[in-house]
């Protein structure tokens, strides 16, 4: 926000410049100069402010209370029942952070995110490099590989739930045809975890592949030619031309991918419903369930949400700093 005051100051001095005719104060001058920009931004600021800012503030407040369905005020017909929840300070946070459940979910969420994004990126990079070569049927391959991206998340989740079905799913039918026994994919914690990761990888690779392909195509071919003339091995070319050339694209998509995967809702919610038990439940689906199933624990859910948000903000800041150290301008 430092920019604001210095900008204003600059404007103010501008007014007192050679002309000296305008007597308008700095505020009015700034208004005259910037009103177009402000007018164009104002709808978004209003919408996001009202619909994100206000709920956020309220979410923070709720997380500091003991609001549940029972204590939240509501209107039934003409009867207005006032809220009876009270301010409890950091109690919710203390009980969440003190529970084994939270750490268990956190560990699984981190594994989920790291494995998914790792596979997204490495498979995406590999496929993009294959597609960046001169290869026959290139555009056909590209089209086929990109297709999962076009399928809405919830549709993909349903498709896969059917493929995983123990009795009628095609995956088990194929296993049986190959002489293996059927696997209860979504009935065991371990297989269920593998199953949801597989779905997320299937859904996420196309985006990474296309983004990386765009990055690869922006690397000038001459660099590779020159390196080849100098006798660089394929690995050296990859290490010293491809990797640095992709750095900006990679850093953006990896961060975006991490945030998206961390908050990925439909895959887990629709495929396993968090089960069996709560073994595949990640932080986000858990917080959602807190708020909207059985006794609606609004304050608990809000506190979970706040913790998730803080984790992500810290992640983004650390990530940004790490990039800065490498000399990135982002």
């Amino acid at each position, binding site marked *: 926000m430092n*920019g*604001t005051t210095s900008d*204003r100051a600059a404007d103010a001095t501008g007014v007192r410049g050679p002309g000296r005719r305008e007597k308008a104060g700095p505020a009015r001058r700034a208004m005259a*100069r910037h009103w*177009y*920009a402000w007018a*164009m*931004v104002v709808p978004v600021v209003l*919408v*996001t402010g009202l*619909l*994100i800012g*206000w*709920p*956020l503030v*309220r979410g923070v407040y709720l997380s500091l209370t003991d609001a549940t369905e029972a204590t939240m005020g509501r209107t039934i017909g003409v009867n207005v029942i006032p809220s009876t929840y009270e301010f409890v300070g950091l109690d919710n946070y203390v009980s969440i952070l003190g529970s084994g459940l939270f750490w268990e979910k956190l560990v699984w969420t981190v594994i989920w995110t790291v494995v998914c994004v790792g596979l997204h990126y490495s498979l995406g990079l590999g*496929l993009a490099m*294959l597609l*960046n*070569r001169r290869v026959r*049927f290139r555009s056909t*391959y590209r089209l086929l590989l990109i297709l999962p*991206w076009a*399928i*809405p998340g*919830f549709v993909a989740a*349903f*498709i*896969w*739930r*059917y493929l995983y*079905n123990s009795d*009628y799913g095609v995956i088990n*039918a194929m296993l049986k045809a190959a002489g293996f026994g059927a696997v209860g994919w979504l009935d065991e914690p371990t297989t269920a975890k593998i199953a949801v990761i597989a779905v997320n990888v*299937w859904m996420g690779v196309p985006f990474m592949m*296309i*983004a990386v392909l765009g*990055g690869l195509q922006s690397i000038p*071919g001459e660099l590779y*030619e020159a390196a*080849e003339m100098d006798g660089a091995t394929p690995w050296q070319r990859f290490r010293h031309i491809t990797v640095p050339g992709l750095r900006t*694209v990679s850093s953006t998509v990896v961060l*975006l991918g991490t*945030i998206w995967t961390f*908050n990925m*809702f439909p895959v887990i*919610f*629709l495929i396993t419903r968090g089960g069996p038990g709560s073994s595949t439940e990640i932080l986000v689906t858990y*917080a*959602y369930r807190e*708020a*909207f199933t059985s006794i609606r624990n*609004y304050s608990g859910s*809000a506190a*979970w*949400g706040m913790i998730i*948000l803080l984790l*992500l*903000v810290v992640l983004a800041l650390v990530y940004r700093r790490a990039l800065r150290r490498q000399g990135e301008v*982002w």
Partner: protein
Amino acid sequence: MSSITAGSTGRARRRGERGVGSSILLHATLIAASLISIFPIVWLILTSLKPRDGWLSTELELFNQPSLDNYIRVLTETQFPTWLLNSVIAAGLTTVLGVFLASTTGYAISRFRFPGHRGVMWMLLITQMFPVAILIVPLYNLMAGLGLLNQIPGLVIAYMTVSVPFCAWMMKSYFDSIPREIDEAGMVDGLTPFGTFWRVILPLARPSLAVTAFYSFMTAWGEVAYASVFMSQEEKRTLGVGLQQFVGQHWSDWGLLTASAVLIAVPASIVFLLVQRHLVAGLTAGATKS
């Protein structure tokens, strides 16, 4: 763009020609990946064409008396048409409003240096990180207070909080790649700043607008969490919520589900394939240029 790179890699290739073995390996890998990529979709379509209880088969069979039975049932015996209509309206409104807001905001932060500029940029970045879980309860209360529960506009507003920040960011990257001289030329010709934006810059940004529209549409089209909570009335449900009824905990009808999934995925895929080339440019324009 691709033709230039194709040419230059082609030249490099001639020097280190690819052997037959590695060619086979390359194609084998790509074919395997493509199969994994499309298999679930193909299987979905095949299942949807099986008769009513065709999915209740423990055998591997590609076809089994193909019929449109499931489609007819979905369209006549279920609420699918209502859900579809709700989804189309919600996604359509989200798209129109989202594109408009994202492009004006993107233009303003790309072209003008105004007090609050950095603040807006930060806000757009940070809102990307919001998990549904934190906003959903307060938003639910807010919507309840405003009487917007079970109302499509309420849902649209919630979706815009998701799509607009990302879209504005994409639009900004694209506007950054349009030379400022073009704006200046517009101004010299006597257009107002808004006139320049509307008549000169927006038409130039068409590819990016397509991407933004597509992203907004898909956000709304595929959303489940907000819709599940905000739209509790049967006739207000959207597709993502409604479809869950077909495959409950105790009762499933995968015939209905697969047919409706095809009906949902096919139009989305067609639109997607039409815009996908721009999608790449739109997403990477900012990232590769800086």
